[in-house]
């Protein structure tokens, strides 16, 4: 809702703009590349523009392209997009207390335009939800400011990329830039041994099960990796909370755990 005067006239709006400004060229370069990648993977101009304007989520757009081109069923594409977007589910839990005072459609609009960088900047600046209406307004205005610049630089650069793509021959294989982008995000998520394991297992499973119809190898690979990692976690928890006479407290929490699951 960054076009609301009560927000863009607020001094915090400018602050939000200023804080995200150093990130804008990076966002623009990524948008440019996504625009080119969409066109070079065989989408029509109208589809690419619609995807840019509506979806506004680079990683799920890029993940959807090969599936869309291969004619995978809609639910596989949507489920893959949702899984790639699951990091935002975690963000929404974090941001919830900051925006719950707003009516539902307003807070969902804020959530819709809040991508990774705005989330990081916002949570770096504000550690606790505003207590007074003024504080809440200031936080909302800051978020609106950073979302505004992030959104505009993404949109403009993606649309420029869609136009530029027409002048680049498909034989250059520039669509591969989209895969490299996903690879980079994948590396950025590899923050623990278990996550690296999940990544390796899913990659192998997706190749092994490639012959499955309807691109179901993607869903299969995600399921195998997640189930395997959750099972390993259970084993680890259990081996760490092996009941000994000294650790009565531990055993109790372990027990509660199992009942909850």
């Amino acid at each position: 809702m960054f076009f609301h005067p009560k927000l863009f006239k607020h001094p915090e709006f400018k602050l939000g703009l200023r804080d995200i400004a150093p990130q804008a060229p990076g966002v623009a370069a990524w948008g440019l590349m996504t625009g080119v990648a969409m066109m070079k993977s065989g989408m029509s101009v109208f589809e690419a523009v619609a995807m840019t304007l509506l979806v506004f989520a680079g990683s799920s757009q890029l993940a959807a392209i090969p599936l869309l081109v291969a004619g995978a069923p809609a639910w596989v594409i949507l489920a893959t997009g949702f899984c790639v977007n699951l990091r935002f589910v975690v963000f929404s839990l974090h941001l919830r207390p900051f925006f719950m005072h707003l009516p539902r459609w307003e807070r969902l609009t804020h959530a819709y335009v809040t991508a990774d960088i705005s989330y990081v900047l916002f949570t770096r600046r504000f550690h606790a939800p505003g207590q007074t209406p003024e504080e809440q307004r200031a936080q909302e205005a800051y978020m609106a400011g950073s979302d505004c610049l992030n959104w505009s630089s993404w949109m403009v650069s993606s649309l420029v990329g869609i136009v530029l793509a027409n002048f680049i021959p498909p034989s250059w294989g520039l669509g591969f830039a989209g895969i490299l982008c996903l690879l980079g995000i994948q590396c950025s998520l590899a923050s623990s041994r278990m996550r690296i394991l999940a990544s390796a297992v899913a990659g192998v499973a997706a190749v092994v099960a490639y012959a499955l119809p309807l691109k179901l190898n993607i869903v299969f690979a995600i399921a195998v990796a997640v189930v395997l990692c959750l099972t390993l976690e259970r084993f680890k928890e259990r081996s760490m909370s092996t009941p000994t006479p000294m650790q009565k407290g531990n055993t109790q929490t372990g027990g509660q755990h199992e009942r909850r699951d």
Partner: protein
Amino acid sequence: MNAVIDTVFAGTDVWSLAVIVGLAMVTVLARGFFMISNQPWQLPHWAQRGLQYAPIAALSAVVVPEIVMSQGELITTWQDARLFAAAAGVLIYFAKRDVLLTILGGMAVFLPLHLLLGW
């Protein structure tokens, strides 16, 4: 004018547009997931833990086949520009921690191999 309209809409089909609208709703659902309900609520424990692994698994499941397969078969040659570009991309990411540099560096390896050597 008609030619422009033809170019813009060429290859557009209703099914793809429906999927695109669906993906937009997925964006709203994911980014606003915990803001939809007015009541505070929690995911079950297993789902919270699953959030740790599903995103990287989904990316890997999409990315790896796009690097090591062509026409539905595992590639049998190492002379493939994608392998070198991906390896360079991973190295650059862990050296610089920057997705943009990963893309640029990977493409700087990919394009010469692909265009000059035909890999």
